[in-house]
């Protein structure tokens, strides 16, 4: 029986990673959203070779690309088929291969930090992302941007993309069992705390929090700061600059599993996201999905993602950071924010992610 739905192939290169964070998770969410939507005949491809649908579905259940990669690498010759070049292909990130092969292509831009903040990247990384980027955009029928902020940056840097971009908002999907598992786990007993996203690398701007620790209003509060993410090589030198009695206020979780992250966020009072620049800032959405307001830097994508579920500060200003801190720990303001965050997080959902893709495929 012929499938009458329009076909779309997703380039699943990111899903071949062992550990799924960032773009592999974005890809998984995209596939889930389109599957739930059901209007497209979804196929999968990597380096022009079709990947069996069941292999991708299995990987999504397992949450790792290890077996998927194994399957791809050992596909029998009889199983290997080049994807029909007339099939629309969507790249969930930048194109890893030569663009312009398929009749209809779209790729996804997550952020332009390698272009606008090259000093925060090694040159090889900048070259990887930027050397063929203009060609990639040229070969796209449509370019998806994961936020208005990324879209605006894209159109400023590449004015010829105007009218050929579309937003592709992602969403948060905690596994159903996390809630039950969390309820049945020992309480996190470290007192009042805020979760902080970021390592001590320049772009993540954790140094602002460290500078702010000495601010009288923050020093006087009892709030601790649980920093989720790699400790980073700059941490020790930063810590040396703050008084010893304040150092105990910073707790570093290191790299944690999704479940531990879920637990740490759920038990926190709020999240602090001081990053200078984010393409989207999914941790902010994760916090809001668990009812936590966000103290976010007034930068890039935060206002559109956090909306009224947070309080903003100038990413360079200790004074504004302290003012935002005072506001968010105020019980009445915290309650006001808490009432808004779930609504704000709910506007980022699978149907919203699927819609622009379906629209693009069906427009051809």
């Amino acid at each position: 029986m012929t499938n009458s739905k329009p076909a779309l192939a997703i380039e699943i290169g990111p899903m071949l990673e062992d550990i799924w964070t960032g773009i592999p998770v974005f890809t998984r969410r995209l596939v889930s959203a389109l599957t739930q939507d059901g209007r497209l005949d979804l196929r999968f491809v990597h380096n022009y070779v079709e990947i069996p649908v069941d292999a991708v579905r299995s990987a999504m259940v397992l949450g790792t690309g290890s077996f998927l990669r194994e399957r791809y690498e050992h596909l029998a010759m009889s199983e290997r088929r080049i994807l029909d070049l007339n099939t629309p292909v969507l790249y969930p990130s930048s194109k890893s291969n030569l663009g312009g092969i398929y009749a209809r292509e779209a790729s996804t831009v997550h952020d332009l930090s390698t272009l606008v903040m090259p000093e925060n990247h090694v040159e090889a990384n900048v070259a990887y992302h930027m050397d063929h980027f203009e060609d990639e955009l040229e070969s796209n029928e449509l370019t998806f941007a994961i936020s208005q902020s990324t879209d605006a940056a894209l159109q400023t840097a590449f004015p010829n993309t105007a009218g050929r971009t579309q937003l592709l908002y992602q969403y948060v999907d905690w596994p159903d069992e996390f809630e039950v598992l969390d309820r049945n786990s020992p309480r996190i007993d470290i007192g009042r705390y805020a979760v902080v996203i970021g390592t001590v690398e320049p772009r993540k701007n954790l140094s602002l929090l460290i500078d702010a620790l000495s601010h009288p209003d923050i020093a006087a509060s009892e709030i601790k700061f649980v920093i989720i993410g790699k400790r980073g090589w700059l941490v020790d030198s930063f810590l040396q600059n703050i008084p010893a009695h304040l150092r105990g206020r910073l707790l570093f979780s290191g790299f944690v599993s999704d479940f531990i992250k879920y637990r740490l966020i759920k038990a926190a009072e709020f999240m602090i996201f001081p990053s200078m620049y984010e393409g989207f800032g999914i941790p902010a959405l994760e916090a809001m999905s668990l009812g936590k307001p966000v103290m976010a830097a007034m930068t890039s994508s935060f206002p559109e993602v956090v909306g009224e579920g947070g309080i903003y500060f100038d990413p360079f200003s200790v004074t504004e950071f302290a003012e935002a801190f005072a506001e968010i720990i105020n019980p009445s303001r915290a309650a006001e924010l808490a009432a808004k965050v779930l609504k704000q997080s709910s506007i980022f959902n699978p149907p919203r992610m699927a819609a622009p893709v379906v629209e693009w495929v069906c427009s051809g």
Partner: protein
Amino acid sequence: MRAARRLIVSVPGRELQKIRPSSSIFPAEQLLDDGISPALRDALGLVLHHSSEWEQPTLLVARPEIFPGGETLSWLQNRIPGATTHVAISDGSAVKLIPGLKNHVFFYSFGNGIDENVLKTLVRRTSRQLGALRSQWNSAYALRFEGKNVSLPTTALAGYHNPLIPDRPLFKLYLDKGNIAASMETISAIPAIDSARLNSYSQITYVTLTHSLLGAEKFRSVLGKVVLEHFFDDSSALVFALPETDGKTQGVSPSLEAFLTAARDTTFPIPKLAASNIFLSFGELSDAALDVLDVPVMLWLSDDTALWRHPPSYYQKFESIRVYFRPGLMREKQFNEMAAILLGRKFELSPLRFPGSSR
């Protein structure tokens, strides 16, 4: 430059990594007190010197790129009331634009140790972004957009004061083409002389070098020829000011090595002995050193020399000025007009092209 309400300035991100501004937007003068590089200090100082043409104080936006659009851009705009114009002082690695403002770029590092290849890479990656700029300040690069060389107009801002340059000794040139390292050792071992000794010559040719000029194959022929000529005419002196480092490189040997390598790679044989009348200075000669000279001094420059580092009055010290020009990289008419303002006097433009070349 037309008067406008407020000028906004931004600087390269790498210059902000060692300092911590107190907010995203602050009076631009504040940055002069922080730990920025000497080259940026000169460039920012020049921009601020000329900013009196704007009605409101010039502000510096630490990271314009974090306010790309929507609410963040509105937030920025609310904090820079009256802003109409933005100049991105750039090291060539990125050019930041602020949507809604007239954006300009000031490539400040060239001639002071930054490789022009960085700019070429940026142009290759984002040619259209550069096409959105209104002008380039104090440069006349021919940038390639959509397959054509289309130059951004140039805005010329003349220098306003001489930079503080220390007195520097002059080292005699020695080149063993087969051994650059030994040549460097020999140069440093021979006693250096004071610049006042240059008065014993009938005239002086003073060549201020840049890394990109040394890297230009066509200039190497010029270099080899002039060195050889001076070996056989000890009545006149030849002084090379080696490129200053960009602050990242320790010591002075990279510039010396680059110079000796360029001299080695010429086709001219160079006598393996210490020249009595060919000297090397690790950076430009100080004003004081030039002022004591009472013999004619001919200045040779490169088209990427930061001509704006000195005021036009500085260039009056010289008997003549020759600017070595790379036609493929710069727009000749545009460069001529800019240099006339920055130098404030007549000069000779000397294109680096082979005989018979159409360019």
